């Protein structure tokens, strides 16, 4: 390989890196939803500090907004994303609310949101699997 090509390689790779695929974005979303779940469960057991819980949920909330804004552009065409769109919007909102409930130490309301979050997470996971199957084809 010539030196010139070697020099171009990293540049090419950097460009290739710019837009993560839909699968990768779905992985990130699932990762953050899972984070919210683990953080929530730990807080309900009173084993993590309030401030940490609130900050982590806020971080999760912001990261989800970041990723989902780019997601629907990256989706392959011909996929019905309405259901996942609403599930995602709802869970993002819920996570934001949960962060506030931590401050109020309102465990029952927090529990309810966490449960609905977990059911939304299932919808998102099913959707991710269907996309992966589509991209593999």
């Amino acid at each position, binding site marked *: 390989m010539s030196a010139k090509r070697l020099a171009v390689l*990293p540049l090419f*790779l950097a460009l290739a890196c710019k837009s993560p695929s839909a699968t990768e974005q779905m992985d990130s979303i699932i990762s953050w939803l899972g*984070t919210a779940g*683990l*953080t929530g469960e*730990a807080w309900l*057991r009173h*084993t993590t*500090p309030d401030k940490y819980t609130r*900050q982590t949920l806020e971080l999760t909330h912001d990261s989800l907004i970041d990723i989902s804004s780019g997601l629907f552009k990256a989706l392959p065409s011909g996929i019905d994303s309405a259901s996942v769109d609403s599930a995602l919007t709802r869970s993002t909102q819920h996570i934001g609310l949960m962060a506030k409930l931590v401050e109020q130490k309102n465990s029952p309301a927090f529990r309810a949101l966490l449960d609905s979050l977990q059911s939304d997470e299932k919808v998102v996971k099913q959707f991710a699997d269907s996309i992966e199957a589509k991209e593999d084809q």
Partner: protein
Amino acid sequence: MKKILQLTLGIITSVGGFLEIGSVTTAAQAGASFGYQLLWAILLGTICLIFLIEMSGRLSAVSKHTIVDAMRERFGFPFFFFVLIGIVIVAFLVLVAELGGIGFALQILTGVGFPIWALPVSLIVWLMMWKGTFSLIENGASLLGLITISFAIAAWKLNPDWSQVGSGMLPSMPGSDKAKYGFLAVSILGASISPYLMYFYSSGAIEDEWDRSYIGMNRIISTFGMTFGGFLSMAVLIVCALAFRPAGVQVDTFPQAALMMTTIFPKWGFYLFAFSMLFACFGAALEISLAIAYFFAQGFGWNWSEDLEPSKDARFAFVYTIIILIAAIPLILRVDPIKVTMLSMALTSATLPLAIGPFLFLMNDPIYLGKYRNGWISNSVVAIVIIISFVLSIISIPLQIVGG
């Protein structure tokens, strides 16, 4: 009796000082993303490290030269300077990452962000260097670091499928995400085979006045210390594989990593992680600051010893003072320590040929080592590490871009 005590202490300090933000972050990401599949990288890195650490100690004990002393003498100033630039830049980034790790640990404990902690933390690290002695840093920090054994207990309690763990010890290709897999493998090797550890260890042998009678002890300390340390890295990987992977959680940020033991130790998991990181990164920050100061002082032939008053080795003290203060700046500017960690681990791999290459010559030098020269096994290991490190140095940067 005294020797047994020294031996035990030596192994304990190696174990307590093994984990730091690099090994924890890379192992955690590997476990969360690929399950046990990257265990082989920790195994390989640890085996290489055992040999290299043993050689570092042997060179010091026999020749009374540290690696840096010998490198400057044999290879001359221009080569030394070239290595100095590479090693110091990488070690500096690792120091930033460790200080960030301390800051992050304090952040999750108190809720106050790590940029606020950056300056106080570096001042405390500096104060330890300024006032402390070598044995205080080596033993004190490492004893605190023993809290990291909680990762091993967690892994044990999680009761992993040991046959799967065993098959992870052999390299295999993943079905998808090959770039990320490669990047993590490179970073794990960079985190395991960390050159600063070798400079620190060989300088420590001089500070502790080792002589030929320590050769056997050196062998035992390096073998068992690094093996147990490697087990701790593997434990982090196993814990994350079981705690995060089923939920699809990836470890991209520090607050996510903090959740790794909250399920297995409901009551203490969070705090065990926070204090493990706090003490492990604190110990590592001290060791790296010392290693950088040693590198300069030995390479240029200044007075150096952590046991001297700062005014008796002014340039040595000056180097660590400056380095520690500058390392706080990126953190104050809110540079993400996890990003710095991943970058510095990949860069460590890239600079490994510079760090390890000289070993092949120095460890075969009859003037330095006489009959204690490397045998063919050690030489083969060094040769293999050099070959691996050349490959790593070529692929690490592209992988950093694609996988990181």
